[in-house]
């Protein structure tokens, strides 16, 4: 594995491609700085993200690690280096998205009576049938039809969101909000949708990617 922190042409760079997960990068960085002692003291560090995307919270975490060893994060002139622009995503959505360390990947459909609980995010590669339950501390993403009960942000995170390829849950909960589809109306939407809290209410909107 290549080093996280590299020095080239008198410039120090954190290479995000060197590790697989953000947690690994943090650990590696911490270790490298510890062994280097005050060799790099007072220097500025830039970040090479490559194809990875960093959230503002992750940036902040790197900043605290660096400042703990007498270094500072050099803000690049172009936004592209932090990965926001280059990825072509709506930056506002990523700014609002709460950050969770762990994401569980479920590679099957959930049938009635089956229940998934995770403290972080959950991604389901399959359907969630009526009678199944998905409860997560973070965000919930269903790459199939969501017809069961989901509860995102179960520890009270209002910013958590639920997205599904087809969003038609029996009940949808975010933090302390409980919603259900209206009686008598059959709403058929043939596109991926996103549910999140806006202005104290759960709103369903088209998922724009």
């Amino acid at each position: 594995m290549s080093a996280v922190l590299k020095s080239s042409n008198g410039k120090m760079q954190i290479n995000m491609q060197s590790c697989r997960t953000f947690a690994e990068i943090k650990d590696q960085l911490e270790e490298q700085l510890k062994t280097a002692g005050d060799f790099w003291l007072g220097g500025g560090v830039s970040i090479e993200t490559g194809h990875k995307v960093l959230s503002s919270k992750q940036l902040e975490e790197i900043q605290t690690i660096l400042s703990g060893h007498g270094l500072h994060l050099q803000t690049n002139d172009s936004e592209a280096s932090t990965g926001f622009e280059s990825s072509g995503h709506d930056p506002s959505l990523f700014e609002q998205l709460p950050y969770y360390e762990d994401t569980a990947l479920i590679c099957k459909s959930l049938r009635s009576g089956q229940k998934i609980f995770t403290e972080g995010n959950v991604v389901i590669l399959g359907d969630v049938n009526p009678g199944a339950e998905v409860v997560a501390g973070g965000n919930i993403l269903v790459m199939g039809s969501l017809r069961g009960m989901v509860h995102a942000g179960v520890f009270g995170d209002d910013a958590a969101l639920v997205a599904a390829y087809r969003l038609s849950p029996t009940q949808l909960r975010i933090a302390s909000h409980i919603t259900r589809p209206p009686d008598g109306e059959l709403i058929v939407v043939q596109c991926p949708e996103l549910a999140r809290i806006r202005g104290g209410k759960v709103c369903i909107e088209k998922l724009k990617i």
Partner: protein
Amino acid sequence: MKSRVLVVTSGKGGVGKTTTTANLGTALAMMGKKVVLLDTDIGLRNLDVVLGLENRIVFDIVDVVNAKCKLKQALIRDKRFEGLCLLPAAQTKDKSAVTPHQMKNLTNELRSDFDYILVDCPAGIEQGFRNAIAGADDAIVVATPEVSSVRDADRIIGLLEAAGLNKSRLIINRLRSKMVKRGDMMNIEDILDILSIDLLGVVPEDEVIVISTNRGEPAVMENASRAGAAYRRIARRVTGEEVPMFNLDDSNNILDRFKKLLKLAR
């Protein structure tokens, strides 16, 4: 009025316990009674779906007995009838999540607020069945005119008697009078002969049941439904009213009735 706890049971699965509970409960609520329906089929809950209340469930029977919520919080008020409530089963647990003792306490707690407490029993004779009958005053046994269903009903009646429930009453469900006439189906007398308990009512086979179950609206609300009418009569009998048995003749059209009258005149 003293409140009654009635358990709807059958032994065999698929004979219409849940349909009977939903329709009988709704019919009693239509008569202005205060009714609560208890789904004890933990792990395979259906009663909420039949009543069209599935998306309102927040707490369930397991949460109530484990004191995770108050009983009033878990009760779901029906969207059509003021006096009708549902206490749903849990879907992600199993029958061992509740004990007969807890069920008895639960039904006793409900007595103060409701006239009728209908308990929807799961199929089988294991813990789910023992839970369901724990707090019951009386049992309603549902059977279809099939040898296997009647055999299971007989076993269930025996178990009910062993548990001290001696006044079980029978509902014969899904009767096809044309088949009975042809001699292809057990008739009411045959069934009563074997089971030797009081008949509470006979419900004819009716397509409306399938439609109403899928829609989440009990068939008793459909005036045109023959099964719905049968359930309304059964509800009146449950309240103690004397109601003559339904004419189960399939020939309900005016021409047939006219022919019958002519025959009588001759």
